C-alpha cells in the first residue's frame, strides 16, 4: 500500500483525510497494519469487497434502472429484452 502521504499527494487531499480513508479500510478488514513495516492488503479482501458490492447491486443499480425505465414507459419485459441484447453484444 502507498503511504498516506503518497495518497494525499496523488489525490491532492489533506493527509488527515487520506488517513481517515485508510483507517476506514482497516476497520472494514480490507487493510491491516504491520508494525514498523506499513499497510498491507488483507487476505480475502478482494472477495469481501466483491461480496459487499454484490449485496448492494440490486438497490444501487437495478432499482434505479427499473425506476428510470418506468418513467420512460419501458416495461419490465422490454427491459429484460434490452439486457439480453446488451449481454449478447459483449
Amino acid at each position: 500500500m502507498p503511504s498516506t502521504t503518497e495518497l494525499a499527494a496523488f489525490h491532492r487531499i489533506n493527509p488527515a483525510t487520506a488517513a481517515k480513508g485508510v483507517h476506514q479500510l482497516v476497520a472494514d478488514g480490507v487493510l491491516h497494519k504491520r508494525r514498523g513495516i506499513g499497510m498491507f492488503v488483507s487476505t480475502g479482501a478482494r472477495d469481501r469487497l466483491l461480496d459487499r458490492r454484490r449485496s448492494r447491486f440490486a438497490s444501487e443499480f437495478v432499482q434505479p434502472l427499473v425506476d428510470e425505465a418506468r418513467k420512460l414507459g419501458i416495461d419490465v419485459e422490454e427491459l429484460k429484452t434490452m439486457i439480453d441484447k446488451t449481454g449478447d453484444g459483449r
Partner: protein
Amino acid sequence: MNVVGVGRGETSNVAEVRGVTKTYGGQTVLDDVSLTVAENTIHGLLGHNGAGKTTLMRVLTGRVFAHGDVRVFGEAPVENDGVLGRVCFVGEDQRYPDHYQVRHVLEAAALLFRTWDAAYADALATDFALPARRGVRKLSRGMRSALGIVVGLASRAPLTLFDEPHLGLDAAFRQLFHDRLLAEYAEHPRTILLSTHLIDEVGDLLERVTVIDAGRIVIDDDADDLRARAVSVSGPVAAVDSFTEGREVLQVERLTSVSRATVAGGRRPDDTELARHLGVELEPVSLQDLVVRTTGHSRRGALR
C-alpha cells in the same frame, strides 16, 4: 490507538483567540471571535471579502491590537519577538522597499526566519518562474503572489499564514502551489492558516475550516465533517417540501414547479429510500455551496 493522528502526537494549540473584538472608526470588524488553530494542521479561513479574515490574521500576528485574549504559542503576540520569530505572515499586499529585487526579498526573509531554507527558496522561485533580478515593483499581481508563496513555504515557520495567496495566479501555478504545500506539509509538518475565496480549489487540502461572515464565526468544523453536513434535494415542489419537513433548511430555490433545497444534518440512513419513494434527487453539497448558503450571501442576491 492512533486513529486519525497520522503519527502526530498529542495535538496542542498553536494559536488561540478568545472573545476578540476589533472596531475601526466605530465599525465592528471582528465581533466576539473565538478560534483555536491546532498544531500541524492546514486550517482554512473562508469568507467574503471584508468579512474580517485579514483583520483576524493581523490580530494573530500581532500587527493590530484587539480587545480580548490572543495567544500564539501560548503568549500574547504584540511586540513579542519570541513569538513573531516563529510566525510567517504572507499578506495579500506585501510591501517592499522600492529598489528591492526578488533576490533581495529572499535575502531579507533569510535573516528574518531562523528556519529559512535558502536552497528550497531558490528551487521554488525557479518553479514559479520568478527572475531573481526582477524589481519587485515590476512584478505582476500573480508574480507578487508567487513571491509570497515562496517566502511562506521556504520560511518553514511553525505557524505560517497565507492571506489570499492565489490572487492573480493562473491555474497551473495554483496547482503547483497546492502540490508544493502538501509535499512540504508532509515532509515538515507545521501549522498553516490559509484564507481564500477559492473554496472549491482548496477545500480538499484543508483539515479544519473556519468561516467568518461580517466579523463573526459562523462555521468552525472539521473539513470532512462539513462535507457530510449538508445535502441538496431537488424535484417537484411538493415532494421536496415533504422531504425537508422537520429538517433545517439552509436555502430553497424554486423554478416554476421544481425546487431545490439545501438541508443541514446530512443524510439519514433511510434517505435514499425516502428520496426514491418521493421522486426527489439527493446530491452532496460542495464546501463552497455550503459556505455561500451559510453566510447568507445568496439571500442578499450578491452571489459571486
